């Protein structure tokens, strides 16, 4: 059971709050669930009924895809250190997975140490992860968190032609960012949301437009994993929403 008091205490996040660990993973194989005939039958009905009002129909040749439950579980195991627990898990995605009716974040709470409060943010294109990051900060300010886990995921299958322009990711990928106060010896990366572009920041670009959901977060996880080379300020920008995020690195984030 997770309880929350009033959302009125607009305090700063805990003093040294930041990204303690960053993990990025690719998932080249379809989900184990994709081979389950019971699941396939259920998905076929769900999709047919979902598409029918739009004059669309499922692509009969496309029944693979990934499960954000399976991807998220792997990311949790890689990102959460043994013996530590998580208080908040936010799952951010844009393209649905092969379980479009499933409360995946609730499942991930069950498999994540600490049985965190967990929910999902979606339907915002590439900005979903920016909003999820904002929520991690908002709950850190007033929700009494010790650790939070942000999972940004996208998968490479859309089993229908939606009839409007869409970018289906080339690869199923996920990024996990573990936030919290540092343990001795750690120097977390500080995250902030400036109103205007700060001077001296390095713009972190998504170098791979075929990965619209995870691209810039994938790059960030890569930067965080590199050996420290002195203080750096990275700038992440979402052009659709105008959101800016800076990440200050002045030390190594352990993996």
């Amino acid at each position: 059971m997770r309880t929350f008091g009033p959302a009125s205490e607009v305090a700063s996040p805990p003093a040294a709050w930041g990204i303690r660990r960053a993990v990025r993973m690719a998932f080249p194989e379809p989900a184990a669930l994709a081979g389950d005939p019971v699941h396939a039958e259920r998905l076929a009905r769900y999709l047919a009924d979902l598409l029918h009002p739009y004059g669309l129909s499922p692509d009969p040749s496309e029944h693979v895809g990934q499960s954000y439950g399976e991807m998220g579980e792997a990311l949790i195991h890689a990102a959460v250190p043994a013996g530590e627990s998580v208080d908040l898990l936010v799952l951010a995605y844009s393209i649905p997975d092969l379980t479009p009716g499933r409360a995946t974040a609730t499942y991930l709470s069950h498999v994540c140490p600490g049985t965190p409060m967990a929910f999902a943010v979606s339907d915002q294109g590439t900005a979903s992860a920016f909003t999820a990051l904002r929520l991690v900060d908002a709950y850190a300010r007033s929700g009494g968190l010790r650790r939070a886990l942000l999972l940004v995921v996208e998968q490479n299958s859309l089993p229908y032609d939606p009839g409007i322009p869409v970018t289906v990711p080339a690869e199923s990928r996920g990024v996990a960012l573990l936030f919290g106060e540092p343990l001795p010896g750690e120097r977390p990366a500080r995250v902030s949301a400036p109103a205007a572009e700060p001077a001296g920041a390095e713009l972190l670009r998504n170098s791979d437009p075929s990965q619209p959901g995870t691209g810039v977060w994938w790059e960030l996880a890569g930067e965080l994993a590199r050996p420290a080379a002195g203080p750096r300020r990275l700038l992440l920008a979402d052009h659709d929403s105008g959101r800016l995020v800076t990440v200050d690195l002045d030390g190594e984030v352990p993996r």
Partner: protein
Amino acid sequence: MTALLAVADYLPPGRVPIEELAGDFGLTPMQVKVFRRYHRLGSVRRDPHGSLLDLLRGAVAGLDALPGREHRVRYVLHARTFPTVVPYPHNPVRELCRELGLDRATVFAVGHHACASGLLAIDVAGRLLAADADPGGLALVLAGEKAFTPEAGMVPGTSFFGEGASACLVAPAGDRDRVLSYAADLRGEFDTDAPEQALEFQRIYADALAAAVLAAVERAGLTVDAIGVILPHNVNSVAWHQVCRTLGYPRERVVLDNVATAGHVFCADNLVNYRTARQRGLLRPGEPYVMAAAGAGRGATFSAMVLQH
């Protein structure tokens, strides 16, 4: 402290008796009779020619507090029972925002608590507004879905979904309907098709929902005696009677008016019932009340929120 500035709802006029749904869900006449006599379900709302956009538009149309404040709306959240309700990347909520001139808002869906996602969305909206430290900021929280597939038409052995929607303007501060606390118990162990877990879910349902109510009440620094009314989810009446027995709370103070006539309106139930409570004069100034819901399907979430009118 988060406050609800205005609440509206929309229930389409079409009513379908549950007997007419029996064929869609393969129910026997005896099963339907149990739903009607034991669970106190009667009919559900349906809008056969309308879309999700129509439902949401209907709810927002009742928000008299929105016109003139569009420029203050920073966030628009759609609370989802089912995570995917339209083909990707179609987005009726964005269409609605364009119609309403909410072009400054960050628009997204929030959920994965099934039918308890409506309470989650109110808490999320309040946290975002508080973190922004902008006293003029507002969030529009929408709920409501189409019963577009059998999975979104019926909760097996428990309830039928009804179509409808709610809309709520959330403010970072205010003097009425202030959010005092929120509790959520996420039970991902029920994310399974195993029959024994389905039985276990039925066994713990009333106790778990009562525990969420108690947790929220205690977090608000109150006792159940202080709670004027409970605004439930409309799953059925008998489930709430069991919760009341566990809580020692009078069942006549749970607003179950819409169970028999509207059905379980996805995440919108609590606010649909808020409107009913207002119309019946059940919310008294200064008195705390509870909104509570259980979300079930793949996984389960039991949630409660204490507000002060």
